[in-house]
């Protein structure tokens, strides 16, 4: 993850989205802001991935976020990150890598 003005961000997200869109796994709305949602094929694939053992740690993390962090807005998430990780994120120079 990279330290951007509004918090941590990975510039590869754009490529990931193009990868998924090219395979008709997601659809991206043209409205502002853009909305990303799973297609039927994407949903099916996600269920398949979630059932795989190697992805179980990631699934557990996602489950922990449901009804918790997932309900926060972008600004609230940014504020929370700066509050919890002032040294690791808040004080880093712009565009530098955030290390665990």
């Amino acid at each position, binding site marked *: 993850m990279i330290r951007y003005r509004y918090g941590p961000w990975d510039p590869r997200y754009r490529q990931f989205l193009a990868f998924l869109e*090219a395979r008709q796994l997601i659809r991206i709305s043209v409205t502002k802001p853009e909305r990303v949602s799973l297609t039927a094929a994407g949903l099916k694939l996600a269920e398949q991935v979630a059932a795989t053992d190697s992805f179980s740690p990631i699934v557990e993390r996602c489950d922990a976020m449901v009804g918790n962090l997932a309900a926060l807005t972008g600004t609230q998430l940014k504020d929370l990150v700066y509050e919890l990780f002032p040294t690791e994120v808040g004080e880093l120079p712009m565009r530098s890598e955030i290390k665990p």
Partner: protein
Amino acid sequence: MIESAPPRPLRLGRGLRVLNVGMVQQSGEVEEYDFSHAAMTVLTGPRNSSKTTTLKVIDFCFGGRGSVAEELGAAIDEKYAALSVNIAIDGVHYRLLREFEHGRRGRVKIDDDTDLLVGEVSEWLLGKLGWPSLSIPLGRNAITATQQTPLTFRSALRHIYRREDSWTDFAAKEQEYLRRAVVSLFLGFAPQRYETADYDLGQAQREIAAAEAVFRDVLTSTDESVRAVVSQLGLPPVLNSDSLGGVRAELMQRLAAVRSQRDSITDSAALAAQSADGMPGFDPDLPARLEHASAQAAGAAEEAASLRLVVAEHERSRSLVASDIARLHRLVDAVDIFDELPVRICPACEQSVDPKRPHDDATCYLCMQPVSGDIRRRRAEREQRALATEQEDLGDALSRAQADLDGAHRMEASATKRRARLAHSLQDARVSRLAPFMAALEDVATEIGRVEQQLAALPALETILSRRVAAEQAVKTARREVARLSDLGNADARGASDTSERCAELADHMNDFLSHFQDRGWVAGLVTVSADDLTFYVGTRPWEDNLGAEARVLFFLAYSFALLHLSARPDQRTCAPGLLLLDNPYQQGLSADVVVDAISRIANAAERLGTQVVVTQARNADAITAPHIEIRMPQEYAT
């Protein structure tokens, strides 16, 4: 305007005169009433012809505090834009103007150069008249009064402006203490009466009572506190602040002696410790062995700490390798899953792409460029194998480090135990050598602690005693102040010897006036004024107990007559108003010819003394025998 007798123009002597009243209508038209042609001006006219209103206008310009509608009526508020009164004070002319425009209603303009708030006019008039500005006790008895109130011009005005509804009392709703203050102001001894120390004396007496109560309270509480502290700490007796110095010196001396005793014992103990190294039963190598054991324990602890760091580092590396292996597992699974999902939309142009589009096996169906076989899976599997080997190596290294750490822990525990045993032995040996001195040292330390505690309590005692001193001082100060004010009061009393004379003179003028009305409305005895409390007596009883309604009207005509005569007094202390405003004295069924006679006598007095009287009445003024000017009010308003 009708002249019934040839009057002399109004003389502008000492005191206040009203020369002219002006009322500016909203249309710009100005109504003016000139009072300067005679000592007495009589405003006549039927009901609702503004006779009373004209007097109220004078009152309003003298600083009436209410709104125009409240003081003069809504009709005046609607019709007029400004009211003015031209006056003379001790012969000097002034013009007081009240305008009704927004923002000006609470102000009075004087001579176009002074702009006062309504509340400031009274003070201005007192200053110009040369009358004293006094504060009077708010109550009949100055000694018991707890507040003061200013004696204003408006309070005095109520005695010279007798309104239609105040012919049976000095002034409507006037407090007795205020009436006495106004009478004493006119008679010229208000400063003696109110600038004396009576009020201050009362205040000082209350303060002395409060200070004595505080002193009693402080005396009891401080005695108890001091006694408790002294007894608890075993201090020498403390009587007052002065004795504290002696106690402090005594305690300091005692502390120095005990400290010196402690130093002496400490030196003896040190000497004994040095000379005891050769004593039988004492192992001379014990300190060196303890030092060696301590060094060993420190070394073992250091080694254990280093090994703990190594173990932690190995565990972290193993965890990273495990997470890398898991990540590669995910990569392999993802490659398998996504391999079966061909690209169906061009990410660049977003057009649909057919995966079954004819193309060579060795080329991309999307861009037709040659492609090589997918080696991501093989590469990931190779990396996984390398990481698994690394994980095994790390496990071995971790086991070895953990075994070393366990050994280091055992060594550290053993060295620490040995050091503790040696330290204990050394301590026992030293204690046995110093034992003879310990009891004495403990006693001395206890004594030092006790003396230091006693010394620490002294500032608190000083504070407690200083409260007593302060309270005692406050009582002394209050007593001195009472004595001073009492002396001052006695001096004032000696200087006020002409008070009785002035009261008697006022009463004489009233009696002179009333003697002409004996059996013509006045059947009571002589008026006297008490110099002590300025009570007006008729015969032997207070005036209000002895007079009926008709007689009261005559009483106040007599009072007004007497006030006019104050202008004849040569001294400057007397505050002669020089003006009377009498609103319709035909009151309480008093015979009209008696009233006419009374007004004529007042007018003659005004003419003779050079003062001014303005009277209003419904009937014409032809019956008044004294020189006067009659102003017939021009308009009659519908009711």
